[in-house]
């Protein structure tokens, strides 16, 4: 898994060198960090086994993307603003989800990060002990990826896929319910 993560970083870095900018337009739906390679019990993954979102032909989002919308607007939006759009207080995570490596995303959410200086007092807390975040980290990640791609508009996703039994079971196990 870690090796795959590294190769993803290398690819992204290569793109950066080539274009010289972090252009969001660089991410197309064919981007290997976006495109669905396979589905497993209602969860969707890229060819590198990185969680990603899925929009079906009738416009329904996968369950994790919908669940991520809910969890984001409970745990994250009081700092990062509605719909992953960012705020005066904290950066727009819909962009971070595209520019940050998945494992870095998980690391920052779990362990936190500080940027303290003369002009900046930016502190991301460590959510490692918070089940309301940690049990839904992939949900939040794929939701933000979908927002970054504008694959889902702002607001509540109108249609969603049903919650699979496997997702329900792992949620209950994680939350200790």
């Amino acid at each position, binding site marked *: 898994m870690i090796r795959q993560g590294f190769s993803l970083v290398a690819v992204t870095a290569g793109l950066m060198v080539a274009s010289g900018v972090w252009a969001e337009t660089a991410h197309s739906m064919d981007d290997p960090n976006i495109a669905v390679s396979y589905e497993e019990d209602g969860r969707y993954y890229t060819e590198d086994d990185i969680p990603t979102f899925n929009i079906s032909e009738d*416009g329904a989002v996968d369950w994790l993307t919908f669940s991520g*919308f*809910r*969890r984001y*607007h*409970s*745990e994250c*939006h*009081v*700092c*990062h*603003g*509605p*719909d992953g*759009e*960012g*705020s*005066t*207080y*904290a950066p*727009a995570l819909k962009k971070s989800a595209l520019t940050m490596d998945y494992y870095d995303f998980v690391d920052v959410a779990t362990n*936190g990060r*500080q940027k*303290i200086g003369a*002009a*900046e*007092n*930016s*502190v*991301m*807390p460590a*959510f490692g*002990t*918070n*089940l*309301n*975040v940690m049990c839904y980290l992939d949900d939040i990640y794929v939701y933000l990826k979908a927002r970054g791609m504008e694959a889902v*508009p*702002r*607001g*509540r996703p*109108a249609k969603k896929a049903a919650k699979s039994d496997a997702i329900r079971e792992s949620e209950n196990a994680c*939350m*200790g*319910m």
Partner: protein
Amino acid sequence: MKSIKYLTSALAICSATGALANADLQSQIDNPAQWAIQTGDYENQRYSDLDQINTENVDDLQVAWTFSTGVLRGHEGSPLVVGDTMFVHTPFPNIVYALDLTQDGKIKWKYEPKQDPNVIPVMCCDTVNRGVAYADGKIFLHQADTTVVALDANTGEALWSVKNGDPSKGETNTATVMPVKDKVIVGISGGEFGVRGSVTAYNMADGSLAWRAYSMGPDSDILFDPENTMHLGQPVGADSGTNTWEGDQWMIGGGTTWGWYSYDAEADLIYYGSGNPSTWNPAQRPGDNRWSMTIFARDPDDGTAKWVYQMTPHDEWDFDGINEMILTDQDIDGTPRKLLTHFDRNGLGYTLDRLTGELITAEKFDPAVNWTTGVDMDPASENYGRPAVVAQYSTEQNGEDVNSTGICPAALGSKDQQPASYSPKTELFYVPTNHVCMDYEPFRVSYTAGQPYVGATLAMYPAPDSHGGMGNFIAWDNIAGEIKWSVPEQFSVWSGALATAGDVVFYGTLEGYLKAVSAETGEELYRFKTPSGIIGNVMTYEQAGKQYVAVLSGVGGWAGIGLAAGLTNPNDGLGAVGGYSALSDYTALGGQLTVFTLPD
């Protein structure tokens, strides 16, 4: 008016020996050349007797001088002016500057505390601070990390400090403190982290603890006297702070106390409100959840509660009750009354008898409010004092995992902490308001100390079928319970208002405008765009015979988080979801004081 007020207070100082108010602070407050307390006066009226700037000349107002605070975050509260010194505070790291007004604001001293930056992310909704307080030659700063420090007002030297809470459990501070008599009254934040709210009194001389009163818990914790603490004319009885909770939920019950405090020296009572019960998922805390969402009247000497009134039993929408209690003496039907008026987050403007806690009026101060049909005003009714909840907008009745839509107001309330003002000349209240509605979906969450404990998903949008903006600035008649006039605003009005004897009312806007309007009509008389959005409170003072008006700019706070990117209306339907005007199109982070005056 001015001379009478002066005379009265001078008499009070001569006869009293610290028994009433804080004699030094009261005399500083009574001098209209100064702004000695964040709230303008103990009554929270935010009214100034200064009238050099008036409706005839306010359009000539110019910038006299400016000051950069060096911090880029939401700047709430306002400077103080005592004597020839202005005291300016900042958001985290909570710097305090003393500026010499006789030398163009030269810095007399600067105090910068050392605080663990880990407090930053446990402050829900930005690292704001609502300013310092003054009494007995000391400046009181209540830092983000809940350290209360007393500084020598002349030198900035720290005289004592005390820790009021534990940030690792989510206990933080955003509020100012209120000096009363020989004590400093201190609140706490953290309702979104399962903090059990409390009010604490420290002795002004040395910072030692005098008393602490929790918002919920056993009678000995909440300092209630079951026989003599009254709720709507009835004794509360034993265990009122635990018997409307299931199990031990009260121990993480919220009801934090991060708003404004007022004081009636004659009645010798302090007044404040408590915030939302934790969590935001009402299904996890059955019962009325007393005494969250409550107006408290307490004895400042020992903290005992004289009366309480719970505005929103069993909150289902995050309608914190912490907004300011404005004390006025007015006639009702020819009878002089001692009144308390409060504009709650829940959209109702309450007026009570502040001596007894009797409910006099409770009316909507924004016509968009729809979650209730109103408060039962019949003392004989078993539902006396309770709001009737509209089932469609009840997140409790709709249940967990159900999205209740179209609730007005949104969680940030028809009005948040941004304080209103009152003019005794017009007998009107000038109220900065939000005009925002929401969808609210509660779900189950687990509690971890020091971690967010929210349990609901929210989507907010401008009130539908209205002017499209997200705010109004209104004039309110508290006895009739009616809006006198209303000025629509594009964004929520998140700045505290100032009323003056010049019949001019001032407030700031999120785009960064300082605005002056007529106290009688609301007609706009002046505007100036400051460097950043205004969430600070407007204040005024006089220096060397000239009246000045000052306000802090620095967009942020919950307004900066919620509105930076603009709001969307999901009811517009898929595909048509367009962003409403984004605050980030108008302003950016800043931290600046702008001081206005008339040309010579």
